[in-house]
C-alpha cells in the first residue's frame, strides 16, 4: 500500500488527506508539531476575544481521523532524505496522552514515504529590527502565538500598551483582539493609508476612519526603527523611524506579512525560492515530492495572482487538486477568478475579480466609487476604460453573491450590465436596505450614463 506522508495539518494538508481518503485506500500520515488536530487558523483571534473556545475552531470531531484511517503524528519534521524517501521527525510531547496521536521520541525517528506532501504554511516576517527577539515581541500566526499572546497580554494591567507593526489583515485583527481587553493599542502603518497596497484610496480611507473610531491609535507613514529592551530582556518601548518618537509598551505585535515556512528544507535538494518551487501540477523539483498551500511558490504566476498566495481557499484548492494527482488523475492547479474576504473590526469586506490600488493599477483600469454618507459602507467597481468590461468589485458592509459575480466575470459582462443588475448580486440578509438606487444614481452622474436598476430576479439568480 502506498504511503503518503503530509507535513503540516493546516487547510492544505488536511484537504489533501481527506480527498485522498475519499478516492483511495492509501496509507496516509499527517505530521504536525503545532497541534494534535486540524483547526482553523483564521479563527484563532476569536479564541482570544472569547467568542469561541479553541475546540470550536476544529472543524472535525476528534474521532474523525481514526474513523477515516488518517494517522496523526505530533512531531517536527527535521530532515528530508529524498534519495531514500524518508523523513526524520522529532517528537513534541503533548500535554496529555492521546491514543489517536503518535508522538515520536525527542530524539526522533524516520518515517518512510512513497509520496511526500509539503504543506507547512507560513511564519511571520521579521525584518532584522533591533530588539525583534525580546520577550513581549511576537507575531500572530500559530496556536503557540495565541498561547504566547495570552501570556504577554492577558489584561491591561500586565500589558499597558501594545504596539502593532505592519498594516495588513493580521495587524488589524490583532488590534481588534487587544481592544476587547481594553488594552491601548498603537498601530504603526508604513503606508500613507491602511492597506493601500491592496485597497483603492476611497476604501482604504474609510477603514482608516473605522480604526480610529475603535479608539486605536493609528499612525500612518510610521515604520519601526527599533524595539528597546528594559535591560532584562523584555520590551520597554519602540522607536518610530520617521519621527524618532518613543512609545512605551509591553507587547509588540509584528504583523508585517508572512513568509513560507521552509527553513527545514534547506539542503534537502528541493528547489526553493521564497517558497517551495512547484509547477502547475504542484510537483517540486524532486520526484514524488509535492508542495501545496502557503509554502508553495508557483514557478510562473497564474494570471494576476502572486506566485505565493497565503490565502485560505487556495490552500484548500491545491489540496483538492493534488489529491486527484496522487490518486492517478494527474491534474493541473487552475484557480478560477480571484476572490477574497476579510473583516475589519465591524466592517465586512469582500472582493471579486481584480480591483487594483492606485499605485499598481494600469491606466486602462477605471474605478467607480460610492460611499454611504453616514454609515461605513462603500463599494469600488473596476472596469476597462475602452471595452468597458467589468474587471472586479470591492464591497465594504455589503455582502455579494459569489456565484452571480463569478458568472459575470466568466461572461465578460460590461460595466453597465453589472451596475444595472447589481441587486441580483446582493447577498445581504433579508430585509436589509439595499443601496443600489443610490449607487446607480451616482454611477449615472459620475460617468454621464442613464442606467436604470433592474429589480432583483430569483429566476436570474438561481438559473
Amino acid at each position, binding site marked *: 500500500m502506498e504511503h503518503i506522508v503530509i507535513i503540516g495539518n493546516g487547510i492544505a494538508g488536511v484537504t489533501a488527506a481527506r480527498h485522498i481518503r475519499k478516492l483511495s485506500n492509501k496509507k496516509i500520515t499527517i505530521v504536525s508539531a503545532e497541534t494534535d488536530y486540524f483547526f482553523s487558523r483564521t479563527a484563532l483571534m476569536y479564541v482570544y476575544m472569547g467568542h469561541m473556545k479553541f475546540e*470550536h475552531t476544529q472543524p472535525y470531531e476528534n474521532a474523525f481521523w481514526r474513523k477515516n484511517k488518517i494517522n496523526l503524528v505530533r512531531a517536527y519534521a527535521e530532515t528530508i532524505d529524498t534519495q531514500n524517501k524518508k523523513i526524520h521527525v522529532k517528537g513534541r510531547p503533548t500535554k496529555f496522552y492521546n491514543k489517536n496521536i503518535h508522538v515520536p521520541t525527542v530524539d526522533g525517528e524516520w518515517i518512510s514515504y512513497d509520496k511526500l506532501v509539503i504543506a507547512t504554511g507560513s511564519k511571520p516576517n521579521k525584518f532584522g529590527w533591533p530588539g525583534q527577539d525580546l520577550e513581549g515581541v511576537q507575531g500572530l500566526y500559530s496556536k503557540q502565538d495565541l498561547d504566547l499572546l495570552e501570556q504577554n497580554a*492577558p489584561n491591561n494591567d500586565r500589558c499597558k500598551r501594545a504596539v502593532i507593526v505592519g498594516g495588513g489583515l493580521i495587524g488589524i485583527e490583532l488590534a481588534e483582539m487587544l481592544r476587547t481587553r481594553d488594552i491601548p493599542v498603537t498601530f504603526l502603518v508604513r503606508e500613507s493609508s491602511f492597506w493601500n497596497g491592496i485597497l483603492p484610496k476611497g476604501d482604504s480611507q474609510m477603514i482608516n476612519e473605522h480604526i480610529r473610531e475603535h479608539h486605536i491609535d493609528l499612525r500612518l507613514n510610521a515604520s519601526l526603527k527599533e524595539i528597546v529592551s528594559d535591560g532584562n530582556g523584555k520590551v520597554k518601548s519602540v522607536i518610530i523611524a520617521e519621527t524618532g518618537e518613543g512609545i512605551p509598551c509591553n507587547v509588540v505585535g509584528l504583523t508585517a506579512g508572512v513568509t513560507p515556512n521552509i527553513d527545514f528544507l534547506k539542503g534537502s535538494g528541493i528547489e526553493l525560492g521564497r517558497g517551495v518551487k512547484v509547477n502547475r501540477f504542484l510537483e517540486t523539483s524532486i520526484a514524488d515530492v509535492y508542495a501545496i498551500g502557503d509554502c508553495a511558490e508557483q514557478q510562473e504566476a497564474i494570471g494576476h495572482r502572486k506566485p505565493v498566495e497565503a490565502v485560505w481557499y487556495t490552500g484548500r484548492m491545491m489540496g483538492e487538486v493534488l489529491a486527484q494527482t496522487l490518486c492517478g488523475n494527474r491534474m493541473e492547479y487552475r484557480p478560477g477568478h480571484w476572490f477574497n474576504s476579510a473583516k475589519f473590526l465591524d466592517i465586512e469586506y469582500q472582493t471579486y475579480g481584480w480591483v487594483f490600488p492606485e499605485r499598481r493599477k494600469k491606466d486602462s483600469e477605471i474605478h467607480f466609487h460610492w460611499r454611504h454618507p453616514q454609515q461605513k459602507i462603500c463599494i469600488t467597481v473596476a472596469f476597462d476604460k475602452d471595452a468597458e468590461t467589468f474587471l472586479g468589485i470591492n464591497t465594504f458592509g455589503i455582502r455579494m453573491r459569489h456565484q452571480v459575480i463569478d458568472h459575470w466575470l466568466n461572461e465578460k459582462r460590461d460595466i453597465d450590465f453589472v451596475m444595472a443588475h447589481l441587486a441580483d448580486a446582493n447577498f445581504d440578509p433579508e430585509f436589509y436596505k439595499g443601496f443600489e438606487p443610490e449607487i446607480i444614481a451616482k454611477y449615472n452622474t459620475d460617468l454621464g450614463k442613464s442606467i436604470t436598476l433592474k429589480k432583483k430576479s430569483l429566476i436570474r439568480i438561481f438559473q
Partner: protein
Amino acid sequence: MNSNTHNPSMALTGEPPKSLSTGQKMATLLGMAGLGILMLAMFNVNFPNQTFWLIVSLSAISIGTLWFSWDAYAQKLPGIKNDGVWFKSISNRGFWAWVVGLALTGFYIVLYFYPEYLGLVSGGENRGVIALFDPLSQLLNGNPASQWFVYGTLYTVAILIFGVKFLWKYRHSRYQRLRTLSVMFFQTAFAFIIPELMARLNGHKILDGGSLPYYDLKNVWPLNYYNFEGYRIKGFLSSGDIGFALLIFAILSIFVITPILTYKYGKRWYCSWVCGCGALAETAGDSFRQLSDKSTFAWKVERWVVHSVVVFVTLMTTAVIYSYLGTDTSKYWLTKSTFLIGVAVLLTLVFGWAMIFKRDQLQKDAQYGAIGYFVIILALIGFHFFSGEEQVFLFKSETLRKSYSFLIGSIFSGVIGTGFYPIFGSRVWCRFGCPMAAILGFQQRLFSRFRITTNGGQCISCGNCSTYCEMGIDVRAYAQKGENIVRASCVGCGICSAVCPRGVLKLENGPLKGRIDSNQVLLGNDVDLMALINQK
C-alpha cells in the same frame, strides 16, 4: 513577573471583556431588588398595597435589565457583540450558570407541582406572590390571579425586556430587529392580552352564554397538545359561532395554514418569529445559545427523541378524542370508528408520500424509524378493531394524557427546557422535545422553499456559525463544502449569518430545484475538478 509563573486563567478574573462596569453593577443590584420583592412575597411577607409593590418590583426588574443592556451594547458601535462570552461564568457553564439553572429549575417544579407555595389558594383569597398579581389579573380578566397568570406575566415581561436587549445587541441587522419585534408582539398580544380579554367574554350573549377555553391563538396542536381534549371541545361548541369558528381555525392551523407558511418560508415563520417558546429562547435565552451540543451523537439523539415525542402526542391525542366520541352514527357523524379510520388513512398518506417521493432524502435510521413507528401504530389500531379491546392503545386514554402532560408538557418543556438554559443552551426543548417543531421540520426538510445558501468559496471554516447555532447544527460542516444548509431542526434565527465574518450565509426562500445541493459548488475552483469532487 516571570512569564513561566504567570497563570493566564487567573489573570482573566474580573477583567475586560468579562468585567462589569459600575453602571452594570448598579443595574444588576436594581434588578435583584425587584426579584427580591417577589421572593419576599413568596415567603409570605404581606405587602399592604399589592398594586404598588407589584409595579415597584416589575419596574425594578425591567429597568435593571434595560439599564444593564444599554450599558453593555447601546453605546458601542453596531456589530457582533460576543466579546468574552466564553470567559463569563454565566455563559460558560460556570458558577453563576449553575446558580441560575438551579433557581429556574426549582421555580418550575414549584410552579407545576406545588403552586400552593407560590400562594395559590383555590376557592379562597390568594396569598404570597400570586396575591401580588391579583390586581393585574382583575384588571385584565376580572378574576383573581392563578399561578399561570403569574407565570404568563413574568414570561411576557422577560421577553419584552430581553427583547430590547437583543434589539440593541443586533441593531445593525434589520432581519434580527424585525424578528425580535415580531416575537415581542405575538407574546404580548396573542399569548398574554387576547386570551385574558377573551376570558372576559365568558357567559356573554355573543358566545350564547358559553365559555371559551383559554386559547392562545398562535398555539397550534401538537404544541398545545390539550387543544382537542373533551372539556375544550365542549367549550368551543357551546360558545356559538365564535366558538365554532375557533375550533375550525384550530384544525385549519394544523392542516392548512402551517404547511403553506412552512412551504413558503420554512419553519422559521413560526419557531423564531411567532412561537412563545422560541421567543423566550431568542430573547432571555440569547446569552446561552452557544451552549448547545454540536456533536453528531447529539444530532442522532435529537432525531430519535423528538420524533418519538411526535408519535407519543399523536397516540395520546387520538386516544383522548376517541374516548369521548360516540358510536352511534345517527347522533353525530364522527364516531369512534370513523375517527380511527381517518387517523389511519391520514398517517398512511403522509407515510406513503414520504417513502415514495422523498425516500432518497431520508437517512437510513429515519427510514427505519418511520417504518417501525408506522407499523406499530397501524398494528395497534388494527388490533383494537379486531380484538374488541377497549383501550385503543393498550393504556387508558387518561393514563396517556396524564403521562404526556407530566413528562413532556411539564418536565421536558419547562423544567429541563427552560430551567437548564444556562447548562444545555436555550433551545433544548425546541430541539429535542417539541413535536410541533418536529412536524414543521419534517415539512421544512422535504417540502419548503427555505434554505441557508452558502456563498461560493468564501468560507474559512472559522466555526462562529456552528458555535452560535442554538439548535446545535454544525453549520460549518456544510458551509466549508459549499453546500446549502437544509436541516429539519433549523429555526431560521439567522444568527449564523450574522456572526459569519466573511458573509458566507444567507437565509432565503427560493426555487425547490437545486435547493439541496447534490452538487456542491465551491466557486473559484476549476470546473472539471469540481465535477470530480462531486462524484459520489
